[in-house]
């Protein structure tokens, strides 16, 4: 029973939230529609992509507070590229690489200088945000190049098609889940998070592994920045303020432990969806914004509390 609960806990949470908004008849026909779930999925893409990287970091026992700033920085880089007439083929690798570069800086400092991830990424949060504003000359970067305009939208809002960005997120989620479960590197992430000293004694090169984790995660943040750019069609260095907390919340609601060693991609994706469904549903219900902020706060605490309860029982 416990095993089933721990596996499907977040999933039940998602169903519960969906059920909550499906009760009032007046809202149900709009809330439970294909077009609405299409919009919910599209709105989840940015947090979901970044949360893939964040799951790896949190499972390894770390944290990254710079995710939101990196999203803003990379979206500015992408906008500058598009402004100079680059094609999507040039913009995508550049943007992902610039995110990965900032991740590499984070990872090297954390692993190489043995500093706390919280401090390093708190610093990077300011550095990346400031660098983004600098690159953008402290204003929004506007361009007319339509190379990536269609990535986060579909021609008909009510049909069954999904925007390409959502497919990218689904494909990468599956790939990352397999990567974390089935590869040596993936298992090493869990090993470091469970007990770094033991992992090192067992022959894991913790310095290189940690640096790589933050680098890969940075690449995911860069991809999230690209999707943000496709949505705004403008490079905005002030975008995604506080989004790192949404990303961390998604990972935590999904059952990961902040002390490392536990977490799953499926859980994280459901965690991200729970928050999007809450936002969307409370708007459909006509609830004020402050109410949905309170709701999401409560959900985070309840999710972690239930997780603790489960862990105690099985121990």
């Amino acid at each position, binding site marked *: 029973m416990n095993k089933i609960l721990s596996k499907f806990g977040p*999933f039940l949470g*998602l*169903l519960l939230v*969906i*059920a909550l908004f*499906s009760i009032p*008849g007046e809202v*149900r*026909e*709009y809330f*439970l*529609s294909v*077009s*609405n*779930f299409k*919009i919910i999925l*599209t*709105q989840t893409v*940015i947090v979901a992509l970044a949360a893939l990287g964040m799951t790896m970091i949190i499972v390894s026992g770390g944290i990254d507070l710079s995710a939101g700033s990196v999203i803003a920085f990379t979206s500015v880089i992408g906008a500058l590229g598009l402004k100079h007439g680059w094609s999507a083929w040039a913009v995508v690798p550049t943007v992902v690489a610039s995110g990965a570069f900032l991740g590499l800086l984070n990872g090297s400092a954390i692993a190489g200088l043995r500093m706390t991830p919280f401090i390093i990424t708190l610093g990077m949060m300011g550095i990346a945000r400031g660098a983004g504003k600098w690159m953008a000359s402290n*204003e*929004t970067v*506007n361009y007319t190049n339509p190379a990536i*305009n269609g990535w986060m*939208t579909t*021609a*008909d*809002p*009510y049909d069954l098609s999904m925007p390409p960005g959502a497919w990218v997120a*689904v494909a990468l*989620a599956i790939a990352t889940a397999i990567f974390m479960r089935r590869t040596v590197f993936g298992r090493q992430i869990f090993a470091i998070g469970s007990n770094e000293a033991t992992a090192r004694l067992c022959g894991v090169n913790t310095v290189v592994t940690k640096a790589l984790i933050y680098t890969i995660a940075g690449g995911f943040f860069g991809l999230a920045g690209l999707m*943000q750019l496709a*949505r*705004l*069609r*403008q490079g*905005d260095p*002030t*975008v*995604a*303020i506080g989004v790192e907390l949404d990303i961390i919340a998604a990972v935590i609601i999904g059952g990961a432990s902040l002390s490392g060693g536990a977490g799953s991609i*499926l859980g994280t*994706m*459901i965690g991200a*969806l729970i928050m999007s469904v809450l*936002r*969307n549903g409370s*708007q*459909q219900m*006509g609830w*004020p*914004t402050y109410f949905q902020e309170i709701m999401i706060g409560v959900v985070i605490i309840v999710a972690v509390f239930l997780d603790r309860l489960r862990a105690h029982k099985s121990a």
Partner: protein
Amino acid sequence: MKKLPLAAATLLALCAMLPITTQAAPERYRIAGVPKGTTDEYWKSANAGMVKAQREFAEQGVTVDIMWKGPIREDDREQQIQVMENFVARRVSAIVLAPLDGTALVPSVELATRAKIPVVLIDSTLDKDVYVSEASTDNYQGGVIAARRLAELLDGKGKVIVVRVVPGSTSVEGRVNGFLDTIKEFPEIEVISSDQYAGPSRDTAYRTAQNLINRYGHQIDGIFTPNNSSTSGTLLALADVGRGGGKVKHVGFDTDKQSVAALRAGDLQGLIVQDPLNMGYVAVKTAIAKLRGEEIPKLIDTGCTLITAENMDDPEINDLLHPPLDKYL
């Protein structure tokens, strides 16, 4: 994530079994209002205007539901886009939008248009013509009124300065252009500075005004400040050097508590105010006219008014300075 469609389908099937009552309602519209922010009184006034229109329609037996939702921060473009998308999914009849950004909001207005939901803009415009109508202040005309007032105060002669706000703000540039074009009609008035930017906040405006007053000192006879923050920053700077109280004639734009107090105290000789309540009201009327298939104008001027210490206690002027929010919200 893969399991989601299945779960949704299951729930859908469950819900389909429940009876859904549909009644043949006569005429009913659901209008969504999406402001730039929710805490500012300016946006609450727009909301009040929408409710005013709702009540008028109710008297004619037409049911209008107003839904009101905006981002918390006035620079959170992503949040405003999400609000727009969620209203499209809610299949509202029409959306009244005050776009935070002329570019970033274009895709979500296009989305609404593809979903056959007409979008009426208030307050600000978009870079691309994807909306059905716009109800906003004729900013150029606001600048014209300000220039006439300042010329009247100066008896048609003297040296004036105009402060700009930030590069690229089309609404404020419109006011400055209206002012500069009109002040030319008075040959004895000389504009000695019109190229300085006051920046986005009261603090930056304060510094800019200090620098300008430092440089031009006692030459200055009149000042036009084209928005809220530049007006209050300039008031502070003039008071610092003892040039307040009407020694330098000062005409400002937009209201807040400080500028209203300055008007009463005689530190400010004129204030041009917009009418956000009227914007919300006109936008709902326009949206419903569009839904009924009537011809609607592309641009509607919601008017701006000169307020002075003499007329500020008139009832209708008082309504502009202190919108009757309690009556509607």
